[in-house]
């Protein structure tokens, strides 16, 4: 028998970012391997699960060890710092890394690497579309609640840029310490009393959900809208649809969008007990794409596989006609969604209305604006 193809899911299995991977990620990549038949070109596919415990230095040490022990590809990497750290190692050891769980713009920006493919989402793709759509519709003054850490600030940067470009105005910003506070009433009050038409949440995870709650509690005006820039469907599930209704955000995946997504998501639901979010779907799609590239290349040699990954389009239930750009970004359509009202929601997990599909070209940073040194500039 031939040497196996070794892939590893590196994620926060149980920590605060476990929704960005964790159990769901494990099942997603198992599904991908099963769907492809368990082996490629006669080589069995072996999966390992690595818990980085949300600590970048554990991620870095373990990634080094995994690659040294023959792992070909590492996927997920929730936590941007972990992702950026592992990317360096993948590059030094010439291996493949697929980031699905982190959204830092650096991953395909100034820190980009030929060995990295970035699936699912990043700060730009989650913020540009909603800003543009709302501003265009006349909601043109914004108040931002920003989480004071790298990701929150990069979202803030992207949002401010987009607001400017669309002709709107940021009337106020408040920065809060990331993941330290549970009380957002103060920020909510500042946001509401600013009178801005849109309140944008440049934060993530519990910071976002708590911001939403506080905004609701303090009586967000009828004429004020909330926009979240990083939200998973699990978080809406946790908030309850009444708290989240009306909220607008962008996502790379919604389980109830097409026949294919529904079919896959139901299979996922059977195994995990909750509907997949965009990271889970990205894990699946990324694994599948990688394995197909290995198949096409006839080898797991990183250079050849990466070449194929860039060459081949991504076509599965997650992405239609996605492709991997020079900067490593897998560009695909994104969706602008709005959370339904409780009355509109008919069955469990029926949470979102898809407002519009954002075409791939618009969803991601145009290559000419890319800071990635790999992008040929003339």
């Amino acid at each position: 028998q031939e040497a196996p193809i070794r892939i590893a899911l590196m994620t926060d299995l149980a920590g605060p970012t476990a929704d960005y991977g964790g159990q769901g990620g494990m099942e997603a990549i198992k599904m991908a391997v099963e769907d492809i038949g368990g082996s490629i070109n006669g080589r069995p596919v072996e999966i390992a699960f690595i818990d980085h415990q949300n600590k970048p230095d554990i991620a870095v040490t373990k990634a080094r060890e995994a690659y040294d022990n023959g792992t070909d590809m590492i996927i997920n990497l929730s936590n941007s710092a972990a992702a950026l750290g592992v990317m360096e190692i993948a590059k030094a050891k010439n291996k493949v890394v697929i980031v699905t769980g982190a959204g830092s713009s650096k991953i395909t920006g100034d820190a980009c690497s030929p060995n990295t493919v970035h699936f699912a989402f990043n700060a730009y793709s989650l913020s540009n579309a909603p800003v543009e759509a709302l501003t265009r519709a006349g909601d043109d003054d914004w108040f931002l609640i920003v989480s004071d850490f790298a990701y929150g600030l990069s979202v803030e940067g992207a949002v401010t840029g987009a607001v400017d470009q669309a002709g709107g105005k940021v009337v106020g910003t408040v920065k809060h310490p990331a993941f330290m506070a549970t009380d957002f009433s103060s920020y909510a009050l500042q946001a509401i009393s600013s009178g801005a038409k849109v309140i944008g949440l440049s934060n993530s995870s519990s910071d976002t959900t708590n911001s939403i709650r506080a905004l609701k509690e303090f009586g967000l005006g009828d004429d004020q809208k909330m926009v979240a820039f990083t939200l998973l469907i699990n978080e809406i599930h946790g908030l309850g649809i009444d708290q989240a209704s009306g909220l607008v955000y962008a996502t790379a995946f919604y389980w109830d969008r097409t026949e294919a997504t529904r079919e896959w998501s139901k299979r996922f639901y059977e195994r995990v007990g909750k509907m997949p979010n965009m990271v889970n779907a990205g894990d699946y799609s990324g694994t599948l794409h990688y394995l197909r590239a290995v198949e096409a290349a006839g080898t797991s040699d990183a250079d050849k596989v990466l070449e194929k990954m860039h060459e081949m389009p991504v076509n599965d239930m997650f992405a239609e006609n996605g492709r991997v750009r020079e900067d490593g970004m897998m560009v695909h359509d994104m969706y602008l969604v709005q959370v339904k009202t409780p009355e509109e929601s008919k069955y469990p997990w029926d949470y979102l209305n898809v407002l519009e599909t954002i075409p791939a070209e618009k969803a991601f940073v145009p290559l000419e604006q890319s800071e990635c040194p790999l992008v040929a500039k003339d």
Partner: protein
Amino acid sequence: MNSRTLLTLAGIAALALAPAFVYPMLMVKLLCFAIFASAFNLMLGYTGLLSFGHAMFFGTAGYILGLGMKHLGWSPEIGLIAGMAGAGLLGFIAGAIAIRREGIYFAMITLAISQLIYFLAMQTDWTGRDDGLHGIPRGRLFGLIDLENDLALYGLVAVCFVLALAAIHRIVTSPFGQVLTAIRENEPRALSLGYDVARYKVLAFTLSAALSGLAGGLKALALSYESLNDLHWSLSGEVVMMCILGGLGTLSGPVAGAFFVILLQNFLADKVGEWLSVIIGLVFLFCILAMRKGFVGELSQRLAGLRGKARAAS
């Protein structure tokens, strides 16, 4: 040759052979934390002061080394020395502020200072904030030895480890160490003998900080990477745990404790999934309740007991 030298030689031999059996980068990490825990022990074990902010020295040195080597083209030895110096200076300042408090107040004020450092690191762009400082080159030691080679790097870390332990041993047995012991044993008495107690404590704190800085610098060098986690209070807590589990006030205790904690995290993590923290918590709880003196303390007590019996029998 007495048993002590024998043990030391055996330890050095084990260090030399280790990379043949253990993944060298894991060894590197183990040794870095062993240095850190030993440096911390200089405070808690030998001076009797519980610092709850020691991560600030570990992390600060890592950032100094990382920034210097990445942006200023420092060589690794300069980076390490600068890291130690920076951590030592920070130790001196923090010590000067904290040293007159006692017990839990001392712990808390060191925690507070380290939180300020954390905040500063979070607020400045050079550190890359929570994304961390990436791509620190390992460089060439003395311009000769290429540290990109994992074994060479291991060699450096192992040598530093031996030196650090030797330094700690020397410090605690030196005239200064004698004064420290006296202060720990009976501070009012030392004061009444005319010792300016605070100054000795600050010096001990500074030395401990500088050695913690050595550990932090080595770790940043080895991982080519430095992150805010190295400044976080939970790391300060972990190092306390290492010392207590291993055994306070002994040379080998903190080393054993550091090995235990890191290996536990390392091996358990991927096996038990989401139960990880529960299991680690249970193991800690058990160890603290069952072994008050830590592994090394309990072991030497057992050995002494056995020896006593043997003597009685003969």
